[in-house]
């Protein structure tokens, strides 16, 4: 059998069609209104340095009396959790009666170069949690940590268990050296000292390069051809551009935090070896005695499932639940299925 059945005139017609779609798409692109993100109503409740703590306006009269604080990663921006009206983890949690707070880390500059993991976890996160406790006159909050923010949440919960009612981790790396962890594989031989000493803060562009390099032909080539088809539909085009905005909206990383995170977590795998010390205290995952819900994505190429699910072997709690989501690292926030499954799983577990 001939592997190709493409007649020359058919090939030309296809290229003509592509060209026409491209022309129509460009026209559509130029007529689009601005790209808005994070539209769910919220108010600022606490600010410190570049950090802002938001509280989303509850959707119900009597929301859950224990609020959730979302701790997002330092990489990329937290509006991924509230990307657009019909793709919003935050909005769905609010609709299900949760009271939601979110930490926005802001964009660190050179004055933040010496921020350490201790500053982020024992400092910023702890003060945000205390702010919420004070506002609601409660002792504990529910913590939802996402990706690197999940790792931070684990450290926080291990160091301050008295402030955490229930812990939810989403696509969170715990074992940083599973064989299928490509990021870890690349990080092992990096001289992170010379990198931080040279650059100070690590530019977001460098991280973008790393992430795009994981699937370069799809993420920097094929994706844009797919976009030609999307561009003729205004809604699909806007969605694409919104995602594109998020992908390239990468804050610089505070230098010392980056140094610590790469060395102690990726290169030494210190979290599961009980080797992480923050503010003079050892991070022992056995101190996590509160109920834990661990959500991971089966197709996650950034945080492979095995890197997450190992958590059950290290936490001190007996109340450990796992939820797997069939999808990738991004799909877990924005796919249609995720909108229904993830907030429902969280709310049901919290109840």
């Amino acid at each position: 059998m001939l592997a190709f059945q493409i007649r020359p005139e058919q090939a030309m017609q296809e290229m003509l069609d592509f060209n026409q779609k491209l022309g129509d798409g460009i026209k559509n692109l130029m007529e689009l209104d601005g790209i808005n993100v994070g539209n769910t109503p919220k108010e600022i409740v606490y600010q410190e340095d570049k950090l802002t703590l938001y509280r989303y306006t509850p959707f119900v009269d009597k929301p859950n009396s224990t609020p959730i604080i979302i701790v997002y990663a330092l990489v990329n921006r937290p509006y991924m959790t509230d990307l657009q009206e019909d793709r919003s983890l935050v909005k769905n949690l609010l609709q299900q009666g949760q009271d939601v707070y979110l930490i926005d880390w802001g964009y660190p500059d050179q004055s933040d170069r010496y921020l350490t993991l201790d500053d982020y976890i024992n400092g910023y996160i702890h003060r945000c949690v205390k702010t919420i406790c004070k506002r609601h006159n409660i002792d504990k909050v529910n913590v939802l940590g996402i990706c690197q923010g999940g790792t931070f949440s684990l450290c926080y919960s291990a160091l301050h268990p008295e402030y955490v009612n229930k812990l939810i981790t989403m696509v969170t790396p715990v074992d940083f050296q599973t064989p299928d962890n490509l990021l870890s594989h690349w990080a092992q031989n990096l001289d992170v000292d010379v990198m931080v000493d040279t650059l100070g803060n690590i530019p977001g562009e460098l991280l973008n390069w790393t992430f795009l390099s994981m699937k370069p032909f799809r993420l920097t080539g094929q994706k844009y051809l797919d976009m030609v088809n999307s561009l003729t539909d205004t809604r699909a085009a806007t969605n694409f551009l919104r995602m594109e905005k998020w992908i390239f909206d990468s804050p610089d990383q505070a230098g010392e935090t980056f140094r610590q995170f790469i060395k102690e977590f990726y290169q030494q795998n210190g979290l599961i070896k009980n080797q992480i010390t923050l503010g003079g205290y050892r991070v022992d995952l056995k101190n996590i005695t509160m109920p834990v819900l661990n959500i991971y994505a089966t197709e996650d190429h950034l945080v492979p499932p095995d890197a997450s699910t190992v958590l059950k072997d290290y936490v001190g709690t007996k109340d450990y639940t796992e939820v797997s989501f069939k999808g990738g690292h991004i799909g877990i926030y924005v796919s249609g299925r995720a909108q229904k499954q993830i907030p429902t799983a969280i709310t049901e577990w919290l109840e």
Partner: protein
Amino acid sequence: MTDKTDLPFEDWLSTQQQYFNTWSQMMQQTMQTVNAVNTKDNAFSDLPWTQGIEWYKKMFTSAMPDELQTVFDKLMEQSQAYMQFNTQFIEAWQKLAQVDHKAENWQHLWNDAFKELRQSFTQVAQGQHANLNFFELPLDNWWRAASTLSGLPGDFFQNMKQTPTHHFDEHINRLLSMPSVGYTREWQEQLQEGARLWRNYQQEQQEYISLFGKVGLRALDLMRDKLLMAEQPIETLRGVYDLWVDCGEVAYAELVTTEEYSKLNARLVNAMMAWKQHEQNMIDDVLGTLNMPTRKELDSINLRMQQMRRDIKALQATENGMLVSELQHELTALRAELEALKAKKTTRKTTTRRKSTTTKAAESKTTTTAAQQKKTTATKTTASKSEPNKTELKPKDDNQ
């Protein structure tokens, strides 16, 4: 957004229609062009189907809103690459189509046809020619990232791969072997060290580029195997492209998961950082000589500031600190209460002033209170200025 009436879309599309209608007639002629231009650089921009994309670029680049410029550029780049890919494929396909699949040795003939494509990749690997720039995407990403870290464009040294590097190496070697003597000896040594680090970075980059040439070759082999085993024929150019991407990703994944790649990737980044660090140190030396602030000094200031921020937070978190904080809150609440009482009292007095004979005494009392209030406000302002950059807003609803 741009007014659509400014854009000659209708004219453009109708012209395009006529233009593409002539393609059938041009096909034979064009394939000859393809064969002819494959030997020179940037030849694909001469082909009819890539010219269309060029038109779009010229017409819309300046009109595109700033926030969409990057996406637009990417779209144009990849559309052009797609057209180039199609051209390459059509050329290869013509040869493959000539293979008689009933012949006993048809698989060998296929292999022969694929050899020519492999030749293109070998040229890429040797840095001679990059018609199939699809497999340069990972390198392109690196050059873009590198350009953000350096004062030079990321691809500044890219063209050097096309020049006989041994001549350049000779110059560098000569520079490095020069004995540093005289009053500027240390500066010369620094320049030599900089040149050595730069050469090291270039060597790592060349090795990196060569390694990616292998991805193209491997992808081609994978594609050939998939086509030979295909159960369903591919009926669209896009189908071929998607298969190409799949094979590219598989070949790429095979490479980047190796220890060899992990080490080379790290060496590339480390070499660049070492060179950049040396460059920074030299700049610092110059700045110091000019009595201007250096990067090291700014780092020291930032380090001390961060330590002070920590100390302040630690003080605030101590028992005394928390007590002070609580007292501050209490004081603020009491002041607010006092203000409210005073306002209430003032209103009442103003109302009764007309009737009362003791108005003057009351006014005098009010003036004294106002003076006290002014003094209190001044104290409050001073106190709030001495507080750290921290704002805590009260909830709107006490029940929440």
